[in-house]
């Protein structure tokens, strides 16, 4: 299966990714993205700052954590404050004063998440605004136009997204439409020298549809590819098989961005399957519910068991929260209405994710990725037999056995 996949990409699109190391067993790669706002080491986890802010943490705090790329969302920013204003503010970078890279999603996902407010036609997606009831049409052209105004370093095509639990002809329709919309986005893109437009592979959980989409989209000269339409309600068994199929048919010399993936285990497995970039609201969202991420899972710090636990969240963690605060204090603070509690956890969880990716990358570069994966799984699950079946299978499919 691998052989047919490794066609190098066509034409003269600048290669924004430089491969630094590859795992000799699995499909894991370590690399470096060269983007307008600086280099980004891969594999990379990109925190999500939907509305031009990383929730309660400042741009400076995010920079201090080592983050070099994060997400903004076209649908939300397109409504508030709107592309014209952001353009006046020197783009999204200027508006939020973020010196590093930005990736903007096209608004496609909102089709699924806000499905009751949207209607899809060949023209585009018609949304009814929850704020003022106004209707907006988000077409491929409009999405790219907004993203051009935002000025993000990586922009995403508008894709026709269906929930991964949907079956039947709608999935096929969405896949073919996504190809047509990709072409429309490419045509509408006014700043290919400054902003990298990524395609998004669709096809749901149907291997044939996905294969078709891969074949067609890889004919287009784009700087990178995203694997979309997953990370919804599908089973993990189907999930990993679609990821593996996708990476087997995507060019090696372009970055593979797996959208919406953020649980630690999923990140590690999908790096093994050949993905380079990830985003997810999970770490930052779960922080705001009082949950701290640790190598063994998570700590629900609001629970009584942490009331007198005077240890840091993670003694090995060097984030500002763990340097200064105990679980007991955070427990107290979480039970007050001081938002500082949420910020402490947001910082820690982002630090956790970034550190995990750093460690993954180092292990690939130092040619010990399979051992790293085994260590990671045993820390997270204890016995190898307790590791989730889908993960064991996925890893086995690329030559990594556990225990």
């Amino acid at each position, binding site marked *: 299966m691998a052989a047919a996949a490794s066609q190098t990409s066509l034409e003269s699109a600048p290669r924004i990714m430089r491969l630094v190391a590859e795992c000799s067993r699995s499909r894991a790669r370590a690399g470096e993205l060269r983007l307008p706002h600086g280099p980004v080491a891969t594999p990379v986890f990109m925190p999500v700052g939907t509305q031009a802010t990383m929730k309660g943490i400042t741009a*400076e705090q995010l920079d201090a954590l080592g983050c070099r790329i994060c997400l903004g969302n076209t649908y939300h920013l397109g409504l508030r404050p709107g592309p014209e204003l952001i353009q*006046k503010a020197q783009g999204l970078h200027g508006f939020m004063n973020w010196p590093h890279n930005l990736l903007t999603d096209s608004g496609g996902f909102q089709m699924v998440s806000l499905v009751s407010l949207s209607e899809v036609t060949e023209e585009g997606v018609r949304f009814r605004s929850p704020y003022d009831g106004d209707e907006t049409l988000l077409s491929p052209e409009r999405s790219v136009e907004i993203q051009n105004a935002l000025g993000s370093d990586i922009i995403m095509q508008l894709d026709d997204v269906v929930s991964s639990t949907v079956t039947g002809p709608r999935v096929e329709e969405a896949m073919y439409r996504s190809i047509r919309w990709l072409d429309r986005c490419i045509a509408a893109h006014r700043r290919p020298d400054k902003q990298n437009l990524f395609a998004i592979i669709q096809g749901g959980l149907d291997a044939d549809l996905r294969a078709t989409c891969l074949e067609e989209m890889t004919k287009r000269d784009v700087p990178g590819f995203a694997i979309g339409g997953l990370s919804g309600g599908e089973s993990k068994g189907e999930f990993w098989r679609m990821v593996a199929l996708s990476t087997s048919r995507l060019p090696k010399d372009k970055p593979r961005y797996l959208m919406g993936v953020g649980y630690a285990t999923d990140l590690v497995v999908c790096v093994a399957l050949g993905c380079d970039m990830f985003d997810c609201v999970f770490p930052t969202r779960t922080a705001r519910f009082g949950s701290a991420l640790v190598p063994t899972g998570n700590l629900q710090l609001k629970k009584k068991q942490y009331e007198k636990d005077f240890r840091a969240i993670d003694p090995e963690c060097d984030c500002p929260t763990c340097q200064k605060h105990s679980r007991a204090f955070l427990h107290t603070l979480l039970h*007050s209405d001081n*938002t500082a509690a949420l910020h402490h956890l947001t910082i820690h969880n982002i630090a956790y994710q970034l550190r995990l990716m750093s460690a993954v990358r180092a292990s690939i570069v130092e040619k010990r990725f399979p051992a790293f994966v085994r260590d990671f799984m045993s820390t997270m699950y204890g016995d190898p037999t307790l590791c989730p079946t889908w993960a064991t299978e996925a890893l086995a499919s690329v030559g990594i056995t556990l225990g």
Partner: protein
Amino acid sequence: MKLNLTKVVNGCRLGKIKNLGKTGDRSMDIPGCLLYTKAGSAPHLTHHTLHKIHGVPAMAQLTLSSLAEHHEVLAEYKEGVGKFIGMPESLLYCSLHDPVSPCPAGYVTNKSVSVWGVGGRVEMTASKFMAIQQALQPDWFQCISDGEATCNEATSIKRARKSVDRTLLFLDNCLKLQEESEVLKKSSIIGVIEGGDVTEERLRSARETAKRPVGGFLLDGFQGSPATLETRLHLLSSVTAELPEDKPRLICGVSRPDEVLECIERGVDLFESFFPYQVTERGCALTFSFDYQPNPEETLLQQNGTQEEIKYVDQTKKSKTSCNQEMTSYEINLKEKKYQEDFSPLVRGCSCYCCKNHTRAYVHHLLVTNELLAGVLLMMHNFEHYFGFFHSIREALKSDRLAQLKELIRRMF
């Protein structure tokens, strides 16, 4: 601790409190303010963002209302609340109540006082109170007191008398318990002056409290609406006249710039800094000028800005905001549509993190979209602005320019 007065001018005391803290090498300027906290943390701020603020006071205020219910945890922790909250270097003052959330009245008895935490009422006798302070180990703490004489419209003399009697009894009991504890001896008890609006009782409270070995005095019951403070200012002068010069005078519930100046002129040294927090919670930014000796160009620009804002604010001054407090003329409301495309900083020339890195348009966006960062940035600005105000008071006193500063603040009205 030792209070050195540099000068007293028109009733205002300028000086330094020295030999503070566990190691006795910290000091605090007066007049000054204390860092306002909620549950042991500056509102919205982590250690990192707090320390980006210039001029953070050396002493932070903790409230027993947010900490009393955790005293078992702190007792087990053993190392004191300063270390527990991640502020081991800060001086700490523990007040009974949170000035922002007044507590229900009617729960003071001859034997106990109550505070309200997240989990409900915590009733404290003198011995329970001192046990809690033993676990907290703050540098200063307000003694339990009966502050309810001013709760109703008209204070009866009887009620005022009772507030003084009870408070003195609490004080004597707590002083006795302090004598029996090595740990507690390291903290200073702040005696509370009560007595409602009855002059006789206020004077009695001041004189009697001054006889006790307290570290300083808290002037309680002078807070309320701006109107009530005005009528109580006269009483305030009489009270402070009875207090020794060499011990600090704190006041609770007073934090607005004009009220702060009035109280300083009547012998008050230290204030709570909850006003900038309230401003933050209503989505506003402090913009009032305290630059009493600006250069001519600045004056012109300020005047133009001030005129416009005063004009606008007059119309909206009465508008209630979500914090149940009326907006003042010391601030601008960043939620207003006119800031949507305003790419200037909150205050031109302000050196805070928010003004150096962000614009009014951005903060407006954060407020409109209900993003958490709005509170963070506004708090950073508002605290810095407020601490800058206190710095300017001290500078004005040093150079005998308080009248100019007062005029500037008065013009805001």
